[in-house]
């Protein structure tokens, strides 16, 4: 048997690790800035670029795709090489992957503060960046599958299956959710509208959590936890069931983000049932992780890497129990649109992704620098500060979320809303937001301690860029004796391509079952005769609403509860959104719902409110938007916007695009004239005029026909 000698590539692992930490700190700082703005809006320094609506997506994109993304690539590249006993397929592809990904992050960091966004959560980046993501992902896929192809270990360990499912599913999700029709280089519209757009977006959003934040990290857990504990995983059989059950079920659960929405009821129920079923594989995986430590719990006391790992796996267990519970419709009625959801995702992000990343880095850096960790004490300090920070982050806003929701739903003895003023329910929980930002600061402090520790570790060691290893070539290896019934999965573990196809089939089934009827069956989205396309000015206003990230704090979805129809007006119907490219339902109500805001206030109120929200709503934490009153509306693309919308199926009459600009000017003039008469004069060509046109239109199409609300 011929033994081959080869070298692993540690340089690429180090590069991704550094990028993860650097962007992690940036992402957390932006998160902190956003958190502070909740109780101190002036922290945006009066600039459009640093205002909550624009930096909230910057924060989420930075921590998901830059912090977790880079850490995931570092971990995948390190473990895949070892599990395959082969160097990565191509050094050139590795570095294209690295620099390509960093360029994408940089372009996100530039475009999002500029208000260049599609507004679809975790998919905010505009179409040229979407294309770049697809290309870089293909490079990653070639590099990854190429490494599998030249492996010297016949069987693929379970970590590799999780990576395979990540590579293919993220590609599918990204492509399907990014179908958009470009208006220009920096602006596009989703090809889906309203309910269908919502279904696709949350099929994507939910599974981005599944296949970007969960499956790759489960692979890392199955690789690094046994290493840390120095013993094999508790049950390899359980890991097989964990894998197939998880990837199969996860994909069905997306509609749990749309409970009590205008999505067809059957799809909501499907999402809820499959979410509950997800507890089984998730907890199977968590227990498999924790039980790996059986007999090694004494090590957890001394070893910071294991401490981080244990909390990470426990946080995974907690958030995967909580998620399904939040998918039960009656619980969702309480938690949805509140800070409870924010706390939930941070249990996952800070606990599961953050702590697992830290655990991995505390192991990788000393290994690659052939030395010991500089200070175990400092790592322990990081652990406790991080844990304390996490607790201070999540507990206050869990509490605050439930409190606020109960206040929204509270009726007095006469049957009226106890707290009819939304602001009152928000100001009540401001102290919780202050505590939350203290928690976030503590967590960030811990990360900085880690950076010091890892830099010192690197300083005292020597980096081993290309460690040498030896293994026999695959073709020379003799299969070890087989038991008679072990054929099937063994066979599959030897065939990466067939394995990949099967995993792809498993993830496609759930998506198709939900999407096909929603798209094909007309009765699922009943049309409403009085719902008309937006006017050109309203369309422009809608784009401003998207640019400023209003959707980050305001939903456009009144749920069918008496507490909501009393507060906002009649509940939202699927047919009202048929011209909404993209949908703007939102997922969080830091401010009130806006779906029925049309005609609720006079135009002049909106001018004053945008200029200084506290003038109309004392105590408001909404940032002022004075630039909307001074900037001129860019109307150059008006004609093209109509054409693009028509291509997407919006029934503007033939030739309307040629008169659209006149139509826009006429509507703007009437609003401006009205404002002059009511003591808030604004020129007709300012941005705010378009925004007012849009806001005054919202939810009014069916208002005349229905008397359900008390607006």
């Amino acid at each position: 048997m011929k033994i081959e000698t080869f070298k692993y590539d540690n340089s690429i692992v180090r590069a991704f690790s550094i990028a993860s930490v650097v962007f992690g700190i940036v992402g957390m700082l932006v998160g902190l800035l956003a958190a502070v703005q909740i109780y101190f809006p002036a922290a945006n320094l009066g600039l459009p670029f640093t205002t909550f609506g624009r930096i909230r997506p910057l924060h989420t994109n930075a921590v998901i795709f830059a912090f977790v993304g880079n850490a995931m690539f570092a971990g995948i590249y390190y473990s895949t090489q070892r599990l395959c006993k082969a160097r990565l397929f191509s050094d050139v592809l590795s570095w294209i992957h690295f620099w390509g990904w960093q360029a994408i992050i940089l372009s996100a960091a530039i475009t999002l503060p500029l208000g260049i966004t599609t507004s679809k959560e975790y998919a905010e980046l505009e179409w040229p960046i979407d294309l770049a993501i697809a290309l870089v992902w293909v490079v990653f896929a070639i590099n990854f599958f190429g490494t599998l192809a030249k492996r010297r270990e016949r069987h693929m360990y379970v970590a590799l299956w999780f990576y395979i499912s990540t590579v293919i599913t993220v590609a599918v999700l990204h492509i399907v959710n990014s179908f958009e029709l470009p208006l220009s280089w920096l602006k596009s519209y989703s090809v889906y509208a309203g309910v269908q757009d919502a279904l696709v977006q949350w099929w994507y959003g939910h599974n981005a959590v599944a296949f970007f934040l969960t499956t790759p990290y489960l692979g890392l857990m199955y690789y690094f936890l046994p290493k840390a504990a120095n013993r094999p995983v508790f049950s390899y059989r359980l890991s097989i069931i964990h894998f197939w059950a998880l990837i199969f079920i996860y994909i069905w659960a997306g509609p749990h983000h749309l409970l009590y929405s205008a999505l067809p009821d059957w799809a909501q129920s499907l999402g809820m049932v499959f979410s509950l079923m997800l507890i089984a594989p998730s907890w199977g995986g968590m227990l498999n992780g924790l039980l790996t430590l059986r007999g090694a719990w004494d090590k957890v006391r001394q070893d910071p890497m294991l401490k981080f790992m244990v909390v990470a796996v426990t946080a995974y267990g907690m958030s995967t129990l909580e998620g399904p519970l939040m998918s039960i419709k009656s619980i969702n009625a309480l938690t949805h649109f509140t800070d409870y959801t924010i706390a939930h995702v941070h249990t996952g992000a800070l606990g599961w992704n953050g702590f697992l990343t830290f655990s991995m880095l505390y192991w990788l850096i000393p290994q690659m620098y052939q030395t010991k960790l500089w200070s175990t004490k400092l790592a322990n300090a990081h652990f406790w500060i991080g844990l304390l920070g996490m607790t201070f982050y999540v507990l206050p806003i869990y509490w605050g979320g439930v409190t606020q929701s109960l206040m929204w739903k509270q009726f007095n003895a006469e049957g009226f809303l106890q707290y009819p003023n939304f602001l009152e329910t928000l100001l009540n929980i401001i102290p919780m937001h202050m505590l939350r930002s203290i928690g976030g600061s503590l967590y960030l402090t811990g990360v900085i301690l880690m950076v010091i520790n890892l830099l010192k570790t690197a300083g005292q060691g020597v980096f081993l860029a290309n460690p040498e290893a030896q293994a026999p070539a695959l073709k020379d290896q003799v299969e070890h004796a087989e038991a008679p019934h072990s054929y099937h999965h063994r066979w599959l573990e030897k065939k990466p391509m067939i394995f990949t196809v099967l995993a792809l089939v498993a993830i496609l089934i759930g998506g198709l079952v939900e999407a096909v009827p929603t798209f094909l069956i007309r009765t699922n989205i009943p049309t409403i005769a009085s719902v008309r396309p937006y006017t050109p000015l309203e369309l422009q206003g809608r784009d401003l609403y998207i640019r400023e990230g209003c959707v980050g704090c305001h939903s456009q979805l009144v749920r069918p509860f008496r507490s909501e129809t009393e507060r906002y007006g009649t509940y939202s119907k699927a047919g009202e959104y048929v011209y909404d490219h993209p949908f703007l339902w939102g997922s969080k109500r830091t401010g009130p719902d806006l779906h029925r805001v049309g005609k609720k206030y006079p135009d002049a109120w909106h001018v004053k409110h945008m200029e200084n929200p506290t003038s109309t709503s004392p105590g408001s934490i909404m940032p002022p938007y004075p630039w909307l009153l001074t900037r001129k509306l860019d109307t150059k693309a008006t004609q093209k916007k109509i054409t693009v919308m028509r291509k997407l199926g919006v029934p503007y009459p033939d030739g309307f695009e040629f008169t659209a600009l006149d139509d826009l000017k006429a509507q703007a003039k009437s609003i401006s004239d009205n404002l002059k008469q009511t003591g808030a004069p604004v020129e007709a060509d300012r941005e705010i005029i378009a925004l007012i046109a849009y806001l005054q239109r919202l939810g009014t199409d069916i208002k005349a026909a229905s008397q359900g609300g008390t607006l």
Partner: protein
Amino acid sequence: MEGLGGHIAAYPIISLVIFVSFFIGAILWALSLSRSHVNHMSQLPLDSQAGEKPHE
């Protein structure tokens, strides 16, 4: 529900059948593995690697 050539009623049933059979398949699969193979697989991350020290 109508559409899909009038066969939409079969849709939930098909989903259920796919779902249940998928799970039974996965469980049978896992159970059918031999002990020696399972041991071999679970040792893979622990194989001593070039340039790596065992974790203390």
